[in-house]
């Protein structure tokens, strides 16, 4: 039988250890926004082949450049720990980079600011700010005076068992020289993503749910995310331009220079661990035929067609489904072949 003194001593030791652990917890506990570290899936490739990518350094987001001339370890843009970069886009000549800043805690403070940084001089300019969420931005491929963006009016959870997400999407444009903002659509879409601007026509492409014929709640479960073409001359003219009978959701895509093909991201299979595997697919608009482009059996995303349509760039998240993503940038010749990892300086 253990003596009372021994028991009390043991309990005091346990208590002291617990107090020490609590103190350590108070000192080393991190807020969610402080934990972000490493590469993200946000990047862009300029017309001269420079790669810009967003990297978190202990929670601080920064834009880094990778080219023959840029110093790869110095961020061209470095933001505060409570801020986030949602998207970046190179100007057609590759000299400027537009980016969206928002607060990490969007439910508390919903606002976005669009900046442009000169990649050669590093000078920064605020173009405009909004009390809504600008989720994606895209320079016009040939007109560096025009920026297009997706605007979400709200950031909330539509259901009590869902996390807060941006909703009520529409397509907007901003003319840099005049400062004029124009709303092109009035759809208030639940979800809209992957904004692409046509090089040849006055149109934009987005991915949205094909829900025009939806009447009941059950109908809405049978809809798929498809690529839509929206004419900017007549924004009411909206049509599906991806395969209409394809039972795949298209989350992200890139458009070929002459608008005749898409490279899109969709679920291809389910891995042995039960996690979806996303691949890129090539879709020819004329033949209306699609084929698999990548065979990585990973989470392949964010396709961008590089300058001269030589390479397709994309990101692979090798830890998809786990709390910490692990992104790698790849390139692959547009005709197919083996993907090649592009080692980014910031790791």
């Amino acid at each position, binding site marked *: 039988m253990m003596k009372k003194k021994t028991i009390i001593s043991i309990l005091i030791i346990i208590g002291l250890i617990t107090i020490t652990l609590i103190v350590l917890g108070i000192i080393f506990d991190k807020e969610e926004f402080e934990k972000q570290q490493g590469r993200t899936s946000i990047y862009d490739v300029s017309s001269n082949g420079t790669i810009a990518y967003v990297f978190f350094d202990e929670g601080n987001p920064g834009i880094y450049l990778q080219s023959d001339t840029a110093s790869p370890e110095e961020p061209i843009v470095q933001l505060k720990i409570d801020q986030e970069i949602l998207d970046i886009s190179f100007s057609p000549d590759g000299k400027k980079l537009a980016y969206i800043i928002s607060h990490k805690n969007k439910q508390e403070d919903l606002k976005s600011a669009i900046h442009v940084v000169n990649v050669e001089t590093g000078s920064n300019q605020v173009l405009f700010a909004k009390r809504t969420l600008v989720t994606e931005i895209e320079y016009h491929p040939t007109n560096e005076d025009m920026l297009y963006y997706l605007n979400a009016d709200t950031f909330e959870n539509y259901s009590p068992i869902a996390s807060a997400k941006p909703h009520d999407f529409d397509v907007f444009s901003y003319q840099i020289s005049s400062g004029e903002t124009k709303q092109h659509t009035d759809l208030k879409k639940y979800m809209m993503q992957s904004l692409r601007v046509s090089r040849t026509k006055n149109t934009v492409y987005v991915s949205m749910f094909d829900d025009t014929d939806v009447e009941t709640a059950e109908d809405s479960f049978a809809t798929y995310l498809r690529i839509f073409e929206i004419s900017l001359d007549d924004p009411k003219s909206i049509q599906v331009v991806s395969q209409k009978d394809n039972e795949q959701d298209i989350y992200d895509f890139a458009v070929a220079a002459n608008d005749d093909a898409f490279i899109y991201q969709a679920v291809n299979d389910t891995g042995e661990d039960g996690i979806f595997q996303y691949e890129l697919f090539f879709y020819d608009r004329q033949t209306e035929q699609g084929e698999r482009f990548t065979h990585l059996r990973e989470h392949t995303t964010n396709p961008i067609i590089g300058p001269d349509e030589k390479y397709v760039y994309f990101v692979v998240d090798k830890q998809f489904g786990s*709390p910490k993503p692990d992104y790698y940038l790849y390139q692959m010749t547009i005709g197919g072949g083996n993907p090649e990892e592009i080692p980014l300086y910031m790791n």
Partner: protein
Amino acid sequence: MTERFTKFVDKTVQQIEGNQQEKDDLYEELMIHLELSKEQFVKAGLSETEAEKKALEDFGEETEIGSEIQQAMYPYRKEMMIVLAIGSIIFSIGIYLAQLFLEGDAYILWLVLSIMASALLFIFSIQSRAFFNRRLWMNSLLLIHIAIYLFGLLLTTGVTVPSISAPLTIFASIIILLAIVLIYRTTIHDYRATDHPLPHYAKWLHVINMTAGVGVIGYILFFLWGMMVMIGSLSPVMVIPLIPLLVWISLYIWQMHLIRKRRKKGAYAVAVVPMAAILLMFWYIIVIFIGM
């Protein structure tokens, strides 16, 4: 019956974990044994007082005797409890530090709760007195312990370093398994006749309800975890998965009430409900999630 014997037997019986009837039986047995021993010494020519002293001397140290009887009645129970308590404290410290330094999350409330529950188990395991005799308290503490460490098991899955996460997951599973084994031991093996009119039936109702209880706690934690993943923060809607807990407690109390009134059929009919719900959940998990 002498005062000396009464004191001695009282102290010995205090070391035993058991219900009042068991203690009364043991008390009687020990007293008879001592009285017989004393009689023999008196016959051998010793005085009354000397015979009492000699009988006690022969019998041994009361706390030691008590511990030996305890060990004979409930083999390795104390050891299992100590292993569970110490193992749980070590696990709590391990997973807390892993979450803090690898993921940046300090689960202070969980740490305090888990250390408190484990420390209580530790005290109960070495101090077999007072309300330790109350099996209801013991099983309640073990159920709370299981709930706390099921959450601990979830925390291990949140550690992104597999070489640390995997052994911690195994560690947590062993702790939960040991706590479940102890609940069944307390309920089935260590359950002896009390003043209950139908102790055998009551025992099996406890077994059924404890099994359902483990399932209900697992279900609640699974859904709370799922909701945390989807919503990302605490929300009033998270009260909803707690409803099965209230239903389980109400049905448990109802069954105990019925069986005490000797209404066996009624009690077992009510007991079918939580078991059916658990089996249905089990089937759902196997068919829907594993796809068998």
